[in-house]
């Protein structure tokens, strides 16, 4: 007997499932309803306060945050960050059309490459799907414009997020991903990798001492851009 038959067979006899129809429907209905459970009220705020809460929560977990009024300000903000931390003027950016078309060469002297991270890129810049004010979390979704390795290999990770894409809670981001999948004709699917990232990498495995930069980035810098044209905004 296959492992599958063995496990499912045993479960069915233990659960006393003679006819599957009734609870089968119950289970499937539950899955399709996407019923929301209790959502903390904390993030349920108008936009300005929501963005303020996001910033406050992100800073609490050692991320740094800057607010920009135009997407076009990103190259200068990145240059400032590199100078401030005495980092080499070389970055790997996500091959995101908006990011690639910025005036990097005109506004800065940063050497800009795009693509996935290889392990020798000290600083990456990528674009988030959104943010979650509840815990100061950024949400990254993998795709041709947003390779996941950029979120983890470099020691410094800079993320651009639109203020309009900062939601109150995680559930709102799931709804956006579902809507995107539906629009792409792939209902019920997710990108290969969705990352919720809340602050830079850390460990407390040696004598319960908190250290940043365990395997992932040691610093996480978030650029909140107002008025950035992205996908659907959450009300």
């Amino acid at each position, binding site marked *: 007997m*296959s*492992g599958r038959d*063995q*496990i*499912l067979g*045993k*479960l069915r006899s*233990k*659960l006393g*499932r003679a006819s*599957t129809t009734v*609870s089968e429907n*119950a*289970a*499937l209905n*539950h*899955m399709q309803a996407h*019923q929301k*459970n209790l959502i*903390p*009220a*904390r993030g349920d705020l108008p936009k300005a306060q929501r963005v303020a809460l996001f910033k406050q929560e992100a800073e609490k*977990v050692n991320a740094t945050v800057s607010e920009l009024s135009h997407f076009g300000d990103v190259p200068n903000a990145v240059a400032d960050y590199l100078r401030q931390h005495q980092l080499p003027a070389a970055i790997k950016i996500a091959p995101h059309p908006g990011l690639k078309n910025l005036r990097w060469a005109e506004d800065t002297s940063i050497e800009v490459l795009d693509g*996935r991270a290889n*392990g020798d890129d000290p600083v990456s810049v990528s674009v988030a799907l959104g943010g979650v004010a509840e815990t100061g*979390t950024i949400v990254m979704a*993998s*795709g*041709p414009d947003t*390779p*996941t*390795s950029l*979120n*983890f290999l470099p020691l410094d990770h800079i993320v651009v997020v639109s203020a309009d894409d900062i939601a109150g809670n*995680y559930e709102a981001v*799931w709804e956006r991903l579902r809507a995107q999948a539906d629009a792409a004709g792939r209902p*019920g*699917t997710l*990108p*290969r*990798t969705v*990352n*919720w*990232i*809340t*602050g*830079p*990498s850390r*460990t407390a*495995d*040696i*004598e*319960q*001492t908190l*250290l940043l*930069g*365990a*395997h*992932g*980035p040691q610093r996480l810098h978030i650029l909140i851009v107002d008025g950035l044209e992205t996908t659907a905004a959450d009300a």
Partner: protein
Amino acid sequence: MDATSLNFKNNARGAIADDPLQKALAKLAVGFPLKRAQAAARLPEFEGLRDQARDIKNHVLENLDLYLEAYEEKVIASGGHVHWCATAADARETILKICQDAGAKTVTKSKSMISEEIAVNGFLEDNGIEPIETDLGEYIIQLRKEPPSHIIAPAIHLSKEQVAETFRNAHIDLAANRPLEEPRALLEEARGKLREKFLRADVGLTGANMLIAETGTNVLVTNEGNADLTNNLPRVHVVIASIEKIVPTLEDATTILRVLARSATGQEISVYTTFCTGPRRPDDLDGPEEYHVVLLDNGRTDMIGSEFHEMLRCIRCGACLNHCPIYKSIGGHAYGWVYSGPMGAVLIPNLIGMEDAQHLPNASTLCGKCESVCPMRIPLPKMLRKWRERQYRAEIGSKQVRWALHAWAWLAKRPKVYRYVMSLGIAMMGQFGGAGRFKSVPFAGGWTSKRDLAAPTGDTFISQYHKGARGDQSGELIRRKIMR
């Protein structure tokens, strides 16, 4: 791994004499509970979320066969493979086969209690494949060939000096006189060593905090980011998870995530919460080309519908360990297998058999703290009592204990005799325990060799109750409380 749970009493004695361990436990005993309490207090919805988390898992367990099938369908639809393994041996063979088919020489691993449970590391090594633990704590104990001593902080029993010595012995290519006094230096060294391994690995093996039926997704929660480098960089990603890890929807997973980190470390949420679905898509620039899920039973189906059914709600947060007076005295290794603390004392006998784990359900004061902090509201003390009852029925345990229980049962059924005997005993002890504490008591050397026993003040509760005098409260109030 081979269990040494039968050796619990010796293990515990050794643990009490282990200085670095005792220091670590003293720190843990303050830090984790305090941070959990603060996180819980900051979220008004916390108790409501615990109720819902419990209900979600109850619903899943009642429909586990259906959810497993639905999950499998989604994994396959997203281009992944599902391997059903009834036993630990099946799972080991399956993982080896996947690695061999991939031509793997090295396998990076992120922390997985299931992989400890099936002892896959030794098995891969025996077959010429190098497994590399990448969670910092797991990496340290892998080098030392030790099991984890805490489910979320596996190397908590070690001092930084012990870690430094471990690194000096293992990383012989580095300068012998390099400074390794500071935790930062130790971390940098491990980060550098593991970075090479991440970039070279052929297969990445991760566990799963949850499996989401709706989308065929596995959830990975870490603070270090090691699970992400493990699942993203190698050509093949293998997930090993036990069957009860299923949740129905993204919303349900989200609810459980809201209580997980708060209960575990007191963080609002862990740094990295990752949702992986299938292999990379055709136009993706990174991610694995193959995605496999190894679904393990290894005793879980036997627990369904049993007295230990509710243990299957466990999300391995470690809160019950952090709040357990026994765990905080002896640490995890004394339990003799991969799990420890109250959850270990309930789970281990289920997985390795009651005979081999007979001491564990007795390693509890049944104080109830574990249940009060368990995010999934698992009645751990009730289940520990169930094991004790089973042991009694199966005549496992020392003659002395069984005799004492018999004697007590005889007395308890005869209230008048019981009260008379108790009042005699109390009066006697009250006489002899003049200074308020005993240094030794006949038949209770096990207790008094390590600590003093408070002497009773010379009267039983029942007689005080009848006199209407208990502490500051009037007897009437106590009577009313008891009657309620």
